[in-house]
């Protein structure tokens, strides 16, 4: 049973005029966006843009100063317990117990989300399989590599089968091979229908994974939409082309000789869009 406001349909997230202040400083300043079920939203922005604060508000940990927020049809503050049962959060830090085994870590977090008995065992096995850690399930987490810990950190948030998962830089601090492994795991989850909110500084990951992108700067949305919409919205090509004016006679002669004319558009990549929207100035840490 879900609370009256909870829905299985409709947008996964609705944010309208969200403001979050810390003292005089507005970490989020009038943010609006939606996320549909089954979509992956990339939340991008330089350090201090308000990405983590946005996730904290959406995941019940931080109250908004103003604005309306609905997550899975629920109010994150008034219906926090009900919402927490339906969302998963992968924190930026490795929120694991180093001196417990991988299986013990997962079993503990599973129990904290109300799992028990055979169901718990089943979900822990599933998570270990997904993370590729079945063979190391009984090793202490402190003996794991950075990539293994990252994978475990992710699946620990999935045990209770959340409908929506927030991932705050889940691939940070690992080597390219491990990052790729972690990212492929996330891609697989999304392909299976999991709704995701994903923050990262790896823009290539967002290009590959996300259906929609919100670019934040100083707590405001400076651009949002699909990747293509953002690229086109920039109105500027990544490359410049020379324009050649030909008269009809010359053109006919060249075409007769086998020359073809085609109009091509090379759109800017996400990094170029990002830098264009947020500028190149260095930012303080969030």
């Amino acid at each position: 049973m879900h609370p009256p406001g909870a829905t299985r349909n409709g947008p996964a997230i609705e944010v309208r005029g969200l403001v979050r202040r810390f003292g005089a400083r507005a970490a989020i300043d009038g943010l609006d966006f939606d996320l549909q079920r089954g979509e992956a939203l990339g939340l991008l922005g330089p350090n201090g843009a308000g990405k983590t604060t946005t996730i904290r508000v959406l995941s019940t940990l931080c109250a908004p100063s103003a604005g309306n927020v609905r997550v899975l049809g629920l109010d994150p503050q008034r219906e926090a317990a009900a919402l927490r049962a339906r969302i998963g959060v992968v924190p930026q830090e490795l929120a694991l117990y180093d001196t417990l085994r991988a299986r013990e870590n997962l079993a503990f977090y599973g129990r904290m989300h109300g799992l028990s008995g055979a169901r718990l065992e089943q979900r822990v096995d599933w998570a270990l399989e997904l993370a590729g850690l079945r063979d190391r399930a009984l090793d202490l987490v402190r003996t794991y590599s950075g990539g293994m810990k990252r994978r475990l950190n992710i699946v620990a948030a999935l045990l209770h089968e959340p409908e929506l998962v927030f991932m705050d830089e889940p691939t940070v601090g690992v080597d390219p091979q491990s990052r790729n492994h972690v990212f492929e795991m996330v891609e697989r989850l999304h392909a299976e229908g999991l709704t995701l909110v994903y923050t990262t500084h790896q823009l290539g990951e967002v290009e590959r994974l996300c259906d929609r992108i919100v670019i934040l700067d100083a707590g405001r949305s400076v651009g949002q939409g699909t990747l293509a919409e953002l690229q086109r919205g920039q109105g500027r090509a990544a490359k410049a082309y020379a324009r050649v004016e030909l008269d009809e006679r010359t053109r006919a002669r060249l075409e007769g000789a086998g020359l073809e004319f085609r109009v091509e558009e090379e759109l800017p990549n996400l990094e170029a869009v990002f830098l264009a929207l947020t500028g190149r100035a260095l930012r303080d840490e969030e």
Partner: protein
Amino acid sequence: MKLATAWILCRKDWRLFLRDRTAMLLSLALPVFLATIFAAAMGGFGGGGVGRVHLLVEDLDSSARSKNFVAELAKSETLRVEAAQDTRRRIADGKAPAALVIPAGWGAALGSAQQLQLTLYRDPGATIEQQILAGALLPALLGSGDEELARSIAMHGMSEFGFSLEQFPGMRSLFDSTWDAFGSWAREHVSKQPAAADGKEADEGFDFARIVSRIVGMRVEDVAGGEDASQKSAMQSHAISGIAVMMLLFGLVAAGGTILEEHDQGTLQRLRLAPEGGAAILLGKFLFTATLGYAQLVILFLYGGVVFSIPVFRDPLAIAVLSLAVVSAATGMGLALAVHAQSRKQLEGFSTLVILVMSALGGSWFPLIATPEWYRKLGHFTLNAWAMDGYQGILWYGKGLSGIWLEVVVLLAIALVASALASRGWKRRFLSTG
């Protein structure tokens, strides 16, 4: 060159040290503070001598002679005399280290064949106090200004040690002629020397108090500590209880500090995201910390019982209930400190300071009965003092649950207040979404 490099490193470490207020506090201020507490406990400020021994006096005689004697006792710099009744029970309950009972008719019978004995009820566990008391009794009797009394005491003392005046002709007159000189010398010198105040003679082979009692013709009855009481077992039961309470506090603050550890490593945020992840987290920490503390106490008291024969099985129920109250209070305090500390390092520094001071003030290191009254009152603002009173009550004074109910109630009250503070700090710092 090596020296120059070493000097550079040394300067760097000094710079780091001076910026670490906790390290500075522990290294420089804490020793001074603890030394002050010890010195104050043992002698008061300004070199004012040793703490006064609390002596109950039950004057059933109420004669001029007995009143003079009591007045002389009250003049002693080493005694705090309190007129009291039912003194035997009060000593047995640990309310004071000793009580002197002057029987009815004592003054009138003095020097006669039916001379009545004074009775000294004492707590043999209060080792140092007995020596101080003994040092004060004789000068008080001699100085009470009653020639007949003093003479009687001296003669009795000599007789006690096998030197009866009646056995040697002429001895009585020799005794009488030297009496005045002896008396004035005693008043001049003996009263100013609290003979065994430093407890040097306090080993079991030399009971100064008993010897003095024999001299003054006094009956001594040890009324605390049970049949097998000895100074050694009193010290041991105090040591086990004292260390247990102090280490409990250290252990439980460390356990409470796992909140900060979880906060730093990010697991606390993940726990908060569980559906019931609010008050349940603090309650879980309380349960962990309390059960750890209880296990710590059980192990230590069992060890004390097996290895040092501390009577921990005399009343297991009373020990179990008191330990529950002690653990609850210590857990609440540990968690309250933990949730208000900004970092694990700050918690360790501050809690070390608080626990050492509480242990010194609260009698974990030395019995409060040996300290001045103001010190004892101050000490009872700490949970250590109430815990020590309770444990000593059971282990040394043989009290049951009914005898330590006050300690249990006070400790539970401390637990309640500390837990409320912990809960408030927890909500404000870790659960607030504002």
